[in-house]
């Protein structure tokens, strides 16, 4: 192919003069036309900063002073000995697990229910999808109110049903804060999962379900043994998205707890932000950023590799 395109390049100059439509473009020109605009955006605004971030991670720098001290991998070593880094990483892992389980399970159930109704499917889907389109500030505010220990409906409800002992200060409790944020996070993601699953269910081979019916499988078993496995494409997609999203999670934590109390709900992105902007340790923040990127890349690649293998 390469050989051919090169030959075409030589011809294209004269061909270009002759007619408009059908001339093949040279490789360089094709690169320019197709990837040029993307590169114009991507290289200066994503790739270059990314490389600079890596460079930055090798320095100690407070973000303002003129000179930066080269420290090699010291920032990385520092992370390994930093308990908050480990708390953050652990929280990220919680996020990975929870956001795979919670919104996906809810979304799957909803999708299965939706696929069974004839009328109003789109309206329901629209409603379940609404939280997906809201920005995280709104989500933070709305759930801040729900979790509010003073006026929040959650604690009111708990007290009303006699579970007053469970009415805690959700976002201020070092154990409850992260789960509480995750529930809010799930609220913004389950609708997406539901829609993806619903689409998968639509293309599901109806005969497979019927075969299982004849084989004697009841609704529950059909769901567990046939439907869920049949959605494996959707499941892997959502898992990859959840993994990436869970490691990158920032806004929702930032607007709900800023990583508190006592760094208990910190995730790497918020901790990195805090180190870079509030604590003036930009080199360290950059090292955290690089490590985060590496972890996300590793996890996604592993997941995709698993998917390929199957």
């Amino acid at each position, binding site marked *: 192919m390469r050989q051919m395109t090169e030959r075409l390049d030589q011809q294209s100059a004269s061909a270009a003069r002759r007619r408009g439509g059908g001339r093949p473009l040279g490789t360089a020109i094709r690169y320019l*036309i197709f990837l040029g605009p*993307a590169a114009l955006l991507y290289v200066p605004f994503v790739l270059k900063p990314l490389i600079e971030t890596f460079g930055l991670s090798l320095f100690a720098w407070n973000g303002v002073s003129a000179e930066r001290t080269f420290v090699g991998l010291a920032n990385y070593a520092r992370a390994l000995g930093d308990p908050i880094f480990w708390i953050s990483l652990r929280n990220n892992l919680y996020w990975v697990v929870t956001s795979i389980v919670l919104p996906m399970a809810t979304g799957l159930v909803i999708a299965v229910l939706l696929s069974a109704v004839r009328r109003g499917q789109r309206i329901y889907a629209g409603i379940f999808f609404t939280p997906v389109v809201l920005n995280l500030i709104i989500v933070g505010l709305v759930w801040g109110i729900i979790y509010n220990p003073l006026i929040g409906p959650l604690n009111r409800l708990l007290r009303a049903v006699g579970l007053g002992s469970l009415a805690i200060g959700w976002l201020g409790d070092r154990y409850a804060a992260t789960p509480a944020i995750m529930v809010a996070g799930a609220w913004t993601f389950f609708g997406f999962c539901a829609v993806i699953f619903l689409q998968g269910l639509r293309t599901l081979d109806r005969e497979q379900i019927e075969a299982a019916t004849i084989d004697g499988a009841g609704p529950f078993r059909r769901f567990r043994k046939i439907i869920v496995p049949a959605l494996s494409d959707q499941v892997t997609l959502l898992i990859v998205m959840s993994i990436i999203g869970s490691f990158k999670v920032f806004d929702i934590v930032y607007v709900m707890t800023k990583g508190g109390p006592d760094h208990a709900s910190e995730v790497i992105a918020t901790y990195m932000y805090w180190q870079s902007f509030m604590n003036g340790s930009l080199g360290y923040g950059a090292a955290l950023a690089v490590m985060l990127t590496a972890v996300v890349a590793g996890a996604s690649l592993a997941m995709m590799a698993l998917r390929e293998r199957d």
Partner: protein
Amino acid sequence: MRRRKTRHTLILHGVLIASALLTVFPLGLIALMAFKTNPEIFANPLALPGAWRWQQIGKAWTDGHFGPYYLNSLQVAVPTVLMVVIASTLAAYGLVFGRLPGARYALAAILLGLIVPLQAIIVSLFHDLGDMGLLNSLWGLSLAQAAVGLPFGIFMMRSFFLGIPKDLIEAARLDGAGDVTVLRRVVLPLATAPALTLATLQFMYSWNDFLLPLIILHDPSLRTVTLGLFYLQGGTYTLNYTMISAGVLITAVPIMVVFFLLQRQFIAGVTAGAVK
């Protein structure tokens, strides 16, 4: 048998309606609060407002400067959407049909962008924007947002293009179509649905974006709606639930309207682009 089916349907709808209510409950709560007074909220956040105080929305609108902020948001979102849709489509076409040697590496570089957290590059990005004189400008914000949104756009359009049969492109080649013609007359007409979805998604992202505007825009007259909402809540030392709730409504309603209008294509596109 027939009767059993009707009962099934009823239960099904019951469950779905309950879940739907639960889903919108938080938003409903906020909507109610926008009409209440602060003491009413403290008394019982769940109760209906004593009166429907529409003027509170108006006050939030003017005090929060949402008028100009809407314009700013549009001024950012529209170019962002255009840039992302155009650049993603071209790039995805190039990657799938462009016979580009080494396209694998370009793709890998783009996928990297998909997994890099924005926070990871924001410090360097900020300095680079400064060097280019793009700080404190809506254009700068547009460019940054477009660049950040681009990897997903390329990924999504690429997934779609991968689903276009190769035969179709080859038929066009045999018909004498060059790259530009194939793109313009064969691929693009087919790509309108995913492109529309991408546009919607990108619009939402741009409209809802918080971190980039926060960092890039310094002049208050340049604030976007989301930033406006943030300053409405974070800007005072006292919590005015009424104002904030009204602000939430003001910010959320348009995006929800856009979503509901485009829902059909949008959801179809989300799934088409995603599962590949």
